[in-house]
């Protein structure tokens, strides 16, 4: 589906990621973990084709990104960014319909098919009741779910999400992760998301990519990569694993006071 070949990312002369050779297949769900400023968002933007790497390249379906025309690329991958600034009072449904832009071609208005996709996406994120609301009047969590709905409405085989669980309450975090896992399982989508919750990562993802921020990286299945010593190293804080039933729970070591 998507692969990185000798991908190197540097910001201001500092190498964040050195020669990443990695690929994700349909049906896989990747969770990217690293400290603040480790280059997670930069990596996601580069994989989406919105930033250029310092060296190496990214290939989607066997073609490097620069060979993809932008509109065709927009039918292959969707990107949820972290920041949202809403300058104008669009209605919720309008922001989701805008995600159908790559499919509209020369049509002036969206057609019934586009509306169906958007309604389904709003329902999947449980925000269909907000469809007519002004986007600027939503709470942070509602706004986040609408943004995820727009990504779903774009209906792409590759979904890139920068901290999708941001601002979501616990219940919605779990339901979003379940939905993404189901999309991978049933529709063979490839998901890559950034997050800081290693416990959520274990259940939500099949694979994990750890970034050190100094060039080092580790990629593998959740079982291979998510264990306490490696996480302690990559997150720069000692982490303890506790067995709870058949689940492993990671907690930061040390008291807070």
């Amino acid at each position, binding site marked *: 589906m998507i692969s990185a070949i000798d991908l190197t990312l540097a910001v201001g002369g500092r190498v964040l990621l050195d020669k990443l050779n990695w690929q994700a297949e349909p049906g896989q769900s990747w969770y990217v973990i690293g400290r603040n400023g480790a280059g997670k968002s930069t990596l996601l933007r580069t994989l*989406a*084709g*919105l930033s250029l790497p310092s060296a190496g390249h990214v290939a989607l379906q066997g073609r490097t990104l620069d060979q993809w025309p*932008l*509109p*065709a*690329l*927009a*039918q292959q*991958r*969707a*990107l949820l*960014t972290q920041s949202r*600034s*809403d*300058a*104008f*009072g*669009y*209605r919720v449904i*309008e*922001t989701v319909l*805008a*995600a159908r*832009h*790559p499919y*509209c071609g020369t049509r*002036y*208005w969206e057609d019934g098919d586009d509306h169906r996709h958007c309604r389904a996406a709003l329902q999947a994120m449980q925000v269909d009741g907000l469809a007519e609301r002004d986007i600027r009047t939503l709470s942070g969590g509602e706004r986040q779910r609408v943004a995820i709905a727009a990504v779903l409405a*774009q209906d792409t085989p590759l979904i890139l999400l920068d901290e999708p669980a941001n601002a979501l309450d616990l219940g919605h975090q779990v339901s979003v992760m379940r939905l993404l896992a189901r999309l991978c399982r049933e529709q063979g989508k490839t998901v890559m998301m950034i997050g800081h919750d290693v416990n959520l990562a274990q259940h939500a993802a099949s694979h994990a990519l750890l970034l050190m921020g100094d060039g080092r990286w580790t990629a593998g299945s959740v079982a291979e990569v998510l264990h306490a010593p490696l996480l302690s190293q990559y997150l720069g804080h000692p982490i303890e694993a506790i067995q709870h039933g058949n689940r492993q729970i990671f907690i930061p070591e040390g008291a807070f006071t």
Partner: protein
Amino acid sequence: MQQRATVLVAALCALACASLVLAGTVGSVPVSLSDLPAALLDALQGTGTTLASTLVDLRLTRALVAFVTGAALALAGVLMQALLRNPLADPYVLGISAGASVGALAALLFMCAAWMVDGAAFAGAAAISLLLYALARRDLGADGGATSLLLTGVILSSGCMALVTLMLSIAPEGRLRGMIFWMIGDLSGAPLRVLPWLALSAALLFAVRNARALNVIAMHGDGAAALGIHVGPLRKGLYCCSALLTASAVTTAGSIGFVGLIVPHACRFALGPDHRLLVPAATLAGGTFLVLADTLARTVAAPQQLPVGVVTALLGAPVFLFQLHQLRRP
């Protein structure tokens, strides 16, 4: 949505025609509605010999100038607000009108002919547009910030305004009045030319063709690239269109204030921010608004004629404040 848009645009077209008819009949010497068709026919054939046909000819010419100017300013406002992702932007914010003022005032100061004043105004606007484009080329690209474009424009604008103040302070008494009137914006004696209509048609065509992309860029800014939009070329197109519209409007009638700010706002408030409806609606509403404002300017203190810029500002300020107040209500 489609039906609603069609009905609304048709209604605004009808309103625009009605405003032109009103402008043709109302004045210090009224022309009755029943005389209008005959007078109009006379005027069109150039055989206007009656008083009515002469009046209608004069008034309609002026109303058409008002329409194209208002439409251009409102459309430029919509495009500038989408480009800067800032609902408070107006066509003058980037200093294009200030550049035109420098040109026009310099021409007035040196007692040039009327056509040279217009030429100098357009040259001033074009020079500032090109200078800003050169300075802010990176900001108009795919991942530029609207903030530094805005800042560059605002600084250029204040630089030009300093030159304007300088010229006003050294101008002899006799020419001061004409210079001030030019700056307020006045439609009396403004000639009906083809260029503003061409600029308006070209910009309107560009905006309508890219209306869906305009929505995406207004929502997401640089992130619009993720939805397949060539952000850099679209931004540059938006900039060129609004610069052309502003230059042609300011050259025709001086810097008439508020139209480019309140008409897009009022339309967004009433019809929503979807550019597929907003672009044609604001264009028609802007034209209609300026025709009505100019009719008011001609008649309210007749036989004295007020500059239309005074009327738009007097109407615009309270309307804008009222709208803001409405918006803040929960």
